[in-house]
């Protein structure tokens, strides 16, 4: 059966490839290279993320473009692999002559692209990857990070842990930069509760039997997790028959509180766990948020929109504001223009820290609950932590 909504999303991407990615070249275009996963398991994030880029680009071009030029995005599939992404980044710079890079998804992949940006002296705007290594240990002046980073997420987790009365905490995530940075940040911010055990699983694993047994036997009262996407989905389904979610309190990051995750799991979603999301279509926010949601709903063809578009939408808007302020997309001037820049976003005013190039982006956090007759859980009430 053709699922209209999903096919529609895919259709938008195909449209993007042919209209945004391969435009008729003219001297009056400003080319930005986009690195997103559009195939394999990463497509679930990459394709909705591209919707945010399309939305922002359309708005910019309808208002006359940037510095008198039409903005065009050239999209490349990273396949969620660092080597593929860095090769694609080099190709975008040398062959496509893009002036700025935008992406990617998954911290390991973005760190690889960041190395290319550093060597080629070209600005990389990272709207989704959260590791603080990007703008910390591996910082260089051409990298900018508009995602909610692991410091902000770890701080929110620490606050919630105290709020729900956690004493001993077990942490679990995929064994890579994001989870390690996140739990380090959590440990630093914890006041009262302590981390009693850390369980890291192989990146991308689909079998969580061993982890579930370890968590069932562990002497912690609260589990803080960071396994994301299909991994979280599989973990929940494998843990449910063991009754794991009834035995301990759960705080789970990595955007598993998104509507798309709740919609995928429906009745299997563990009620009462605290989770986070960049955006929620049902959030009663400021007029700017309502306007963004309406435009996104129109683009996606569904009222219950995806969470990822807001990240790339805000990223493109930052980039656009920076290029406008600099009057050019030339790297050195663009870096200067972006440092300290503030813009209004659908979720309030955000600023790029001139020191570490991080944006004060937060996320919604809250317990996942049944609302009305629907079997799709909602975050209720959502609180914005930044």
């Amino acid at each position: 059966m053709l699922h209209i909504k999903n096919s529609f999303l895919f259709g938008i991407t195909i449209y993007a490839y042919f209209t945004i990615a391969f435009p008729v070249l003219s001297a009056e275009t400003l080319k930005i290279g986009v690195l997103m996963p559009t195939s394999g398991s990463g497509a679930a994030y990459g394709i909705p993320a591209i919707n945010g880029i399309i939305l922002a680009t359309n708005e910019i071009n309808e208002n006359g473009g940037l510095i008198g030029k039409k903005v065009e995005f050239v999209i490349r599939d990273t396949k969620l692999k660092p080597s593929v992404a860095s090769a694609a980044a080099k190709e975008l710079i040398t062959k496509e002559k893009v002036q700025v890079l935008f992406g990617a998804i998954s911290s390991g992949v973005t760190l690889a692209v960041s190395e290319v940006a550093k060597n080629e002296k070209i600005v990389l705007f990272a709207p989704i990857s959260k590791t603080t290594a990007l703008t910390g240990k591996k910082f260089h002046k051409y990298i900018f990070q508009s995602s909610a980073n692991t410091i902000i997420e770890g701080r929110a987790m620490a606050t919630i842990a105290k709020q729900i009365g956690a004493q001993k905490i077990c942490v679990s995530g995929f064994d890579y930069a994001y989870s390690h940075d996140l739990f380090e940040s959590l440990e630093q911010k914890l006041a009262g509760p302590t981390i009693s055990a850390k369980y890291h699983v192989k990146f991308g694993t689909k079998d969580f039997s061993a982890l579930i047994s370890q968590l069932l036997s562990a002497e912690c009262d609260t589990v803080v997790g960071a396994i994301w996407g299909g991994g979280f989905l599989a973990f929940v389904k494998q843990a449910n028959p063991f009754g794991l979610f009834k035995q301990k309190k759960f705080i789970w990051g990595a955007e598993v509180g998104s509507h798309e995750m709740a919609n995928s799991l429906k009745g299997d979603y563990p009620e009462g766990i605290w989770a986070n999301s960049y955006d929620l279509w049902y959030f009663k926010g400021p007029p700017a948020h309502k306007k963004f949601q309406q435009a996104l709903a129109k683009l996606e063809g569904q009222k219950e929109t995806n969470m990822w578009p807001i990240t790339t939408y805000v990223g493109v808007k930052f980039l656009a504001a920076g290029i406008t302020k600099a009057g050019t997309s030339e790297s050195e001037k663009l870096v200067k223009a972006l440092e300290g820049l503030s813009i209004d976003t659908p979720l309030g005013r955000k600023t790029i820290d001139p020191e570490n190039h991080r944006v004060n982006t937060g996320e919604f956090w809250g317990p996942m609950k049944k609302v009305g007759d629907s079997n799709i859980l909602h975050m209720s009430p959502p609180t914005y932590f930044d």
Partner: protein
Amino acid sequence: MIMTTNPAFLFVHAMNSLALGMNLFIIAVGLTLIFGVLRVINFAHGAFFMVGAYVLLSFTRWFEHPAIGFWIGAVAAMVTLGLIAYFVERHLLCHLYEKEHLLQLLFTFALVLIIGDITKIIWGPLQHSVSYPPGFNGAVNLGISYYPAYLLFLILLGPIIALFLWVILEYTRWGRIIRAARLDREMLLALGTNVKAVYSIVFVVGSALAGLGGALAVPRMAIEPGMDSLVIIDCFIIVIIGGLGSMWGSFLGAIILGISTIFGTLIFQEWEIVVVYMLLIIVLLWRPSGLLGTPEKERH
């Protein structure tokens, strides 16, 4: 390490190893059957597994009753994959039997990419989930510990499928022909056997098992693009350890992979992946044709 001395904890891990192994066996046995007879390494076997999962997803949406949707969907996954496999074997793959192996590899790899894109067009790029079928969503008290009913079902289904295939291969006329095709296909042709039909049947049955494996894996994992990539690696590990073409070899290989994955994660944590590949190297050095495989020189 205190946990590893707890009998209930060890029991649950042993059962988890079997459940993982048996789910993978249902998929890998199809791959090994196809290789044994057709001598084709089918990279698209993982993609067939993925299609099986998506077919089940559609059936659970078409039928309001979850049990009907699930079980009919599982059968439909087998049938759909059988039909796809029949088309692929009869109209495409059959032209490559006399060509070099590289072309066959390229062809099945191309199938992986084509099927990946088609599934994305039909079912979209987002993740989907299907619940356990009614009656299988809880845990059963086994005395020593509670254990999920669905995993018990998988643990029982694996040996049933293995025995069923064994009886067919050992005691039926078609089984004898298939075994003969493994050892000497030229002789079989000379005796007037319809080898074309044997090839089609084996490819259809092997692929249908991949479809069933995909459908049965669904309650425990996300249905998403790329879900085939890890499975095909596991399947190759199983058939290499067990012996390419050996049905019981893949059964044994699946149990070994299940144990090394589950206990490897428990004991070595993030080094678990090394355990599996070390095992693979040891088997290849010790018995290059796999634990229960037939050495190539014994074939004709």
